[in-house]
């Protein structure tokens, strides 16, 4: 059973959700392939101005 599993994960999408998943997995000892269809990561959040409640720049 155990030998069939592979210690790597593919994460589809490089937005805030995909990046967080990829970081958590990589920091936990798994090899991660982060796949993004655009030329850079960041997703929709990179388009936002400020975010509630800290009014931090979303970037």
């Amino acid at each position: 059973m155990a030998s069939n599993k592979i210690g790597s994960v593919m994460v589809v999408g490089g937005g805030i959700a995909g990046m967080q998943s990829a970081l958590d997995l990589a920091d936990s000892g798994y090899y991660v392939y982060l796949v993004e269809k655009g030329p850079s990561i960041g997703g929709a959040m990179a388009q936002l101005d400020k975010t509630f409640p800290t009014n931090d720049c979303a970037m």
Partner: protein
Amino acid sequence: MLRHPRYVDEEKCIACGACAEKCPKKVIDTYNAGLVKRKAIYVEYPQAVPLKYSIDPETCIYLQKGKCGVCQKKCPVDAVDFEQKPKTVNLNVGSVILAPGFEPFSPAGLENYQYSSHPNVITSMEFERILSASGPTTGHVVRPSDNAEPKRIAWFQCVGSRDLNRCDNAYCSSVCCMYAIKEAVIAKEHVGEDLDCSIFYMDMRTHGKEFERFYDAAENRSGVNFIRSRVHTVTPIPDSDDLELRYVTEQGELKTEIFNMIVLSVGLQTSPELIKLAEKLDIDLTEGHFAKTGTFTPVETSRPGIYACGAFQGPKDIPQSVVDSSAASAAAGELLAEQRNTQVKERELPPETDVSGERPKIGVFICQCGVNIAGVVDVPKVVEYASNLPYVEFASDKLFACSQDAQDNMAELIREKGLNRIVVAACTPKTHEPLFQETLTDAGLNKYLFEMTNIRNQDSWVHKNNPELATEKAKDLVRMAVSKVALQEALKETELQVHPSAMVVGGGIAGMAAAKSFADQGYETHLVEKSGQLGGQARNIFHTAKGESVGEKLNEMIQAVDSSNRIHVHLNTELTNVEGFVGNFESVLSSNGSEQTVEHGVAVIATGAEAYKPDEYGYGKDERIMTSLELDKKLMDDDPALNNLNSAAFIQCVGSREPGRMYCSRVCCTHSVENALALKKRNPDMNVYVLYRDVRTYGEKEYLYRDARQAGVIFIRYDLDNKPVVKTGGDKITIGVTDHVLQMPVELEVDLVNLATAVIPYGDEKLANFFKVPMNEDGFFIEKHAKLGPSEFSTDGVYLCGLAHYPKPIDESIAQAKAAVSRAVTLLAQEKVFSSGTIAQVDQQLCAACGVCVSICPYSAPSFAEEGRFAGKAEINPALCKGCGLCVASCRSGAIHLKGFDTDQIFSQIFELDAAI
């Protein structure tokens, strides 16, 4: 998988921008929501990762017609490669996480809103770009038609959401109410208080943490207008760029108003390509085309091993997306635990060179940052100046100091010239310091023998019009950095072993889900529950919003926890003391008078919350008036009393959203709608009323609201200043309420009243003190960061989930429990942690043992030494110190030093500036 070519060699591209400057092809800039144009060769935005240009093959003249190629000629590093071809890549992986996101609904087809025909009707995404300092108007709020500052802006809510007439999205997109309020408040900040911002809405859904207070402040402090109405007609006013709105007020009055600009709050939807992808992957989607998951398995798709998170799993905001994405990685971790560390390699580092006692040999690297710095500052002059400063062995400039080749060159020079201190004058250390420090480590130099000074954000960017003075300022900054780094010593990071175990406080749904996930990922877990049984509040809940029986699933969970040999369940147990720090906690558990100490590396707080017991609406005076959980109990027991009901009323927001408890309890609208349907199912002829303020069945829970209306449940809205009045004593209970449609007081006669009472936290101060974690004014614990750290605390090694964080339904509690575990496992998996090198240290010979540092430190790092030569004097625990410097400033004896920022270093900088008094 098909890998599309970028047509630019990533290894070579230095993102100088010469290509885009000369590219003759202008195309729509999707990043700026189509408001402006960009070139066919582009980076999406200046902070893009990777910061490498790429060619859009659909619009590139060369790739389309075989002519042009200007970019190739202009590229100084020969990075443009038109010969790149798409490549098929095959990957073998143990698991897949889908986080492909959403697309904003396009209102192009909604003719009545004039989006396609009028420039001043824009989407919320376009407005976000207008507000942004990096957007096309650099943050100036102007309308597209004439670039004039608007005086009146209207927001229309639910565009592409909760609408089956003009689109197919019956669900609520969950995020639009909150972002519209945020946009209105920020627009007023930009333009001034006189800007009239009006939000037209159906129900105001501010159900997230701290959202209600923000809504209240927007209305009462910022003066944003909230108008409960759906605008039906928008007419352009001839000979002007303004628009006329016609709508019906709640009082039934037809009104006409003129606005300068309209923002359509567009919803979130799954793109058609994604729907196809899901089909290809054989994954079930919901009615609204989101990935189908179960309440108790909130990130598992219908296909084993494939997980979904983010807006693909349902329309949701950033915090919830971040929670779900960590939960998905925990789920993948549970599946693959035995294969952990099999596919990754540990980086091999060269041994560290001992430079103590050596004369400083400083290398200075001045970054041009393309034209960002070099366009203003005379970089060669600064290099020449730097090379003549004391102890400087070598100085040079770099086009981009952060590029890979510059890094390699830097490491080479450190080895070749024996440099033992490095200064980089470039951008901000906040983003780039770790990168340069890594280069030092790779070259065998202690990473603290480094100083970075910011000649971009704090110089070239802000002194664009004064290049000569900017050059002088750059020299000053470099001189200061050189003098500071010359005094810098190699710093050690203390290595601490992490105890490979966890403690979870609270044995409800969230706590059990967390314990189970830890155990499945291979960690010993102590589950501490103060009552005599596991299950928490879920024991009192009948059904989930998706119709699953809670009792059944709960029993499965309890059984799984009980039978796991890695989980130690401690019932009737309370925490009586916690000592230690990240990786090494020691907690005392007390049960029936006996005490036990357990060691654990991390802790998860999942202590839950309880239902509010009201003292209004006749509660406690008549047994026919009950809370939601009490009705659930009757439904679970199939209480015969329910069979003789002819009418029932649900009163919402009992104890929520009012002064003293200014938050929405998030679960009660869905719960009441669900139970209203359950009563209707038992007796379709029954009259069921829901008295509400705003119906907040967010996301796909909206379908329940739709079903309830179709089943004949009557919804009557009331205001906070005109609450329903409940009268008992008669044969029936009477409720007086003002009907919002009839605008008249009505009296309802009912057999049962359900009070949808607030979810209230325990506000456990003792627990907060044990782990040094904060609580908000309502008594909910405060997470590390509302958006990016929703399931963890600022205190390292302590995590948070469930109702103790904020009211939430079961699926969100379980997701957050898994998220907390995922974050904790990133620490446990490292097996050791390193404290920072820049921490405070006490010179105990000078310490007067006054204790100011002990009382001032927010992290409890200083304490009095208990033994040894300096017993009674202060000492600082390096594992707890965050290097904030409070103790250094407060020490009256000058006994505390902050390593890396020592007094002589700070003074040397001030002296170099000639600024000392």
